[in-house]
């Protein structure tokens, strides 16, 4: 295998060889920032952003390398032996294929924008350096996940990502809620990672390698390994591939917050908003989806392709169902939330559900396309909410906002674009096309139609709660503080460029954010619109790109999709009008006023507001059991093991006493006398060393005499 890697290197594209630079640069940046003691904000920011920019350029090169190469999927790997496991070498390496390239571009680009944004957002935080150090570290981990050609490297980067997510959620660790959220996120994702680890180990046991692809096609995702694996069957007639796939999917569930492990994601919003945007909307949570896409060959192996390019296996069915349930579930929860970021968080969860569903029903292209588009417009939304929060002086409750349209027009404009993209407003927004793809494939799914209906419902909810949010935040009048009259232009303008001054005197009129925050928003908004052209049914360039096929413009493809497009547009428009009717028409006057739905259906609303009491459920079951187990272990520890340890320790103490006695009364005395003798002899010999030259000369003379005598005597003998 190593020989293969070396042989490959000759005709390899240079970018493949230097792909490692992309994750390495942010890592180096993080290291440099970490070792710089005094707060050098400029250095930190410029290092992080610069590394991301260079990474973006490199990934552009990588992308260019994956284009135009004729038929078949472009895939080049570069791997080298790393450590020796028992008998054989474990290689690590990286792979460059369309999946990697497109993810690289997305992550580096969005990440760069978010870095720039957070320069403005964190401007007044005294832990600026730490923040950027973590961000850069996260970026390197995420990029490592993307380029990894080896599940081991993948897992390492994956854990780095998890760690940085923990650190960043708990960035404001002085807030107990943040600390708790960080712990929750870490532990919950650990559950998933355990599954991933088991899957990896099983895979290694089965195929003897963790390389996904290799030069000589012996990788664990390639036909030889898979077919040799597919012959095995484990408990309950479950195919080994299926089992491994499900275990790995468990990791994905944990990472991208699918039901039932979704609970950590909403709480993760305790972190700074850029973190929410970068990690919990754009990139990290997408890593789970990416993982599924990465091991898609494993999951889809052995099943015949259906007529529209997706294949049906047990694993994929599970994926689909989990995705669908997650989508509708969290979309419904989002309806009843009041925290602007929580709403977005639940929408994220539901969108991730959509992606999973897309992967399950429609193959890699569908899910990934929604992932990309979602990354852009969700980052846009989060950053927009961040700008709003920044403008409202760290206020997050939508009920306390309102009428911000006047105060921050730019934010309003881009936020509106994001909202329309997310809710899938027809024709002009990327969200529409990607979601439509998913629904389309779900509709064609041979197993069942239920996921399709769930998806439609989710779309309805999505449109509805986004409209509600926008209506509450941007329309009506500002409910941030009691008296409107106290705000005068000079004060607001003054507070606009130094908002920490304003933050000190509690309530003040909201203000537009500085350019360093708005410009990334605008860029993201542009992309949120433009990306739509890549995935229309008429010209499914993205799919072709991923599959490595040329794409032809063919309007006739609308023939079988226009009905569905119509349906989804109708759904979306219904949701929006519903939202406008309920919240736009009659604005609430005060922050304390009851919500409209709450007035109508208090029970349902409470259930939704409390997230179906999932946390409480876990509280009652998992955590209770956990506590019990813990106490049991404590008991064991204290009495059984502790007793044994105590016994051993007493025995040791006795021995120690014995040793001490011997030491003191035999060894020490001996050594003391020995040392004494040595010291005295040294003193005696140093007496000889009287610093008088002439004594030495005398000795030399005597030595000369002796030497001559010896010579004569030796001559005689």
């Amino acid at each position: 295998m190593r020989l293969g890697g070396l042989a490959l290197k000759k005709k390899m594209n240079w970018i493949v060889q230097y792909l490692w630079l992309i994750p390495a640069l942010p890592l180096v940046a993080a290291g440099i920032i970490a070792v710089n003691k005094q707060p050098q904000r400029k250095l930190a920011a410029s290092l992080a952003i610069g590394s991301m920019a260079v990474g973006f350029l490199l990934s552009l090169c990588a992308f260019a390398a994956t284009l135009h190469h004729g038929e078949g999927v472009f895939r080049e790997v570069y791997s080298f032996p790393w450590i020796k496991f028992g008998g054989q070498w474990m290689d690590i390496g990286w792979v460059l294929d369309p999946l990697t390239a497109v993810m690289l571009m997305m992550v580096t680009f969005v990440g760069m924008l978010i870095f720039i944004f957070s320069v403005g957002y964190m401007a007044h935080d005294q832990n600026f350096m730490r923040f950027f150090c973590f961000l850069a570290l996260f970026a390197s981990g995420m990029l490592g996940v993307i380029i990894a050609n080896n599940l081991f490297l993948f897992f390492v980067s994956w854990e780095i990502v998890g760690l940085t997510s923990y650190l960043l959620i708990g960035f404001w660790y002085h807030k107990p809620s943040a600390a708790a959220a960080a712990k929750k996120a870490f532990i919950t994702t650990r559950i998933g990672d355990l599954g991933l680890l088991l899957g990896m180990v099983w895979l290694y046991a089965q195929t003897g390698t963790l390389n996904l692809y290799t030069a000589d096609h012996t990788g664990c995702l390639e036909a030889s390994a898979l077919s040799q694996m597919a012959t095995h069957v484990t408990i309950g007639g479950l195919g080994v591939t299926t089992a491994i796939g499900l275990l790995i999917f468990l990791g994905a569930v944990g990472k991208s917050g699918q039901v039932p492990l979704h609970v950590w994601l909403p709480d993760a919003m305790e972190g700074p908003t850029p973190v929410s945007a970068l990690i919990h909307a754009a990139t990290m949570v997408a890593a789970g989806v990416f993982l599924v896409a990465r091991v898609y060959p494993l999951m889809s192996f052995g099943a015949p392709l259906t007529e529209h390019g997706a294949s049906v296996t047990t694993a994929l069915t599970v994926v689909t169902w989990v995705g669908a349930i997650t989508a509708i579930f969290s979309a419904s929860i989002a309806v009843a939330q009041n925290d602007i970021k929580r709403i977005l968080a639940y929408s994220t969860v539901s969108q991730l559900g959509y992606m999973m569903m897309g992967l399950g029903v429609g193959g890699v292209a569908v899910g990934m396309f929604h992932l990309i588009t979602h990354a852009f417009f969700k980052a846009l939304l989060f950053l927009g909410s961040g700008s709003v929060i920044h403008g409202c002086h760290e206020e997050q409750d939508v009920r306390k906002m309102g009428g911000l349209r006047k105060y921050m027009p730019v934010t309003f404009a881009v936020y509106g674009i994001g909202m329309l993209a997310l809710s899938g407003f027809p024709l002009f927004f990327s969200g529409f096309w990607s979601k439509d793809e998913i629904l389309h494939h779900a509709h064609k799914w041979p197993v069942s139609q239920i996921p399709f209906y769930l998806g439609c419902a989710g779309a309805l909810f999505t449109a509805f709660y986004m409209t509600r949010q926008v209506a509450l935040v941007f329309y009506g009048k500002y409910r941030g503080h009691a008296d409107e009259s106290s705000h005068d232009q000079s004060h607001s303008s003054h507070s606009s460029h130094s908002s920490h001054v304003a933050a000190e005197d509690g309530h003040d009129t909201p203000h537009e954010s500085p350019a360093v925050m708005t410009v990334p928003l605008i860029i993201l908004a542009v992309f949120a619109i433009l990306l739509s052209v890549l995935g229309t049914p008429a010209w499914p360039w993205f799919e072709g790109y991923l599959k490595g096929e040329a794409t032809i413009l063919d309007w006739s493809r609308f023939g079988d999709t226009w009905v569905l497009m119509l349906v989804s547009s109708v759904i979306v428009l219904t949701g929006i009008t519903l939202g406008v009717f309920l919240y736009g028409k009659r604005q609430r006057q005060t922050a304390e006023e009851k919500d409209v739905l709450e007035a109508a259906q208090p029970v349902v609303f409470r259930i939704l507001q409390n997230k179906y009491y999932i946390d409480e459920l876990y509280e009652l079951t998992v955590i209770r059991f956990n506590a019990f187990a813990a106490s049991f272990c404590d008991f064991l520890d204290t009495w059984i093991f502790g007793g044994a340890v105590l016994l051993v320790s007493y025995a040791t103490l006795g021995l120690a006493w014995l040793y001490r006695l011997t030491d003191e009364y035999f060894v020490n005395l001996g050594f003391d006398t020995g040392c004494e003798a040595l010291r005295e002899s040294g003193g005696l010999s140093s007496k000889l060393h009287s610093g008088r030259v002439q004594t030495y000369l005398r000795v030399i003379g005597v030595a000369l005499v002796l030497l001559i005598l010896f010579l004569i005597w030796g001559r005689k003998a």
Partner: protein
Amino acid sequence: MPITLILTAVVLLFAAVAAMSLRNLVHCALMLAISFSGIAAIYLQLNAEFVGFTEILVYVGAVAILIVMAILLTRSGEAPDRSVLTSGWAAGVAVTAMVFVILGWAILNSTGLPPTVTPAPSATVKNIGDVLMTTYVLPLEIIALMLTAAMIGAVIIAFREEEPKEKTKMEDGRWKVEQPSTLSTPASSLQPPASTGEKA
């Protein structure tokens, strides 16, 4: 011609003994010069002119002068009134006697000595130069290097240390006490001693 040789040897040894036993160091140094010249004379009688002249040039011309300089620099030009012998000189004399006896004994009845009647070898300057430049060129270079190092080392060792700053400051203070500090020219003319101090 052993006679002249013996005479030279006697003179040389007398001078050496004097150089080692006189009380006045300068006399010792002069006697040393005489004994060096005696050695040079012996060299000449052994057909080693070059070495003889070098002996004069190096020892009489340089080493003796150097020693004299050192004597004057250590202010020990006068004969001390206390004893010039170190404590425990008797042991030294005994060791010396042993050394001499053993050496003389070894010389007098050693059998392996080469025959004394040999043609006078010719050590012309040309031969010496050839040998120095071919066989012994590396030792020559090393010796040159060593001489340079020794010279630098000697200069550095014997270099007079900078006297601490506060000393000169104290001088200024004393000066200020004596003279009204309004005068500038005497102050300026006072500076040189400190400077010449390091120079000389």
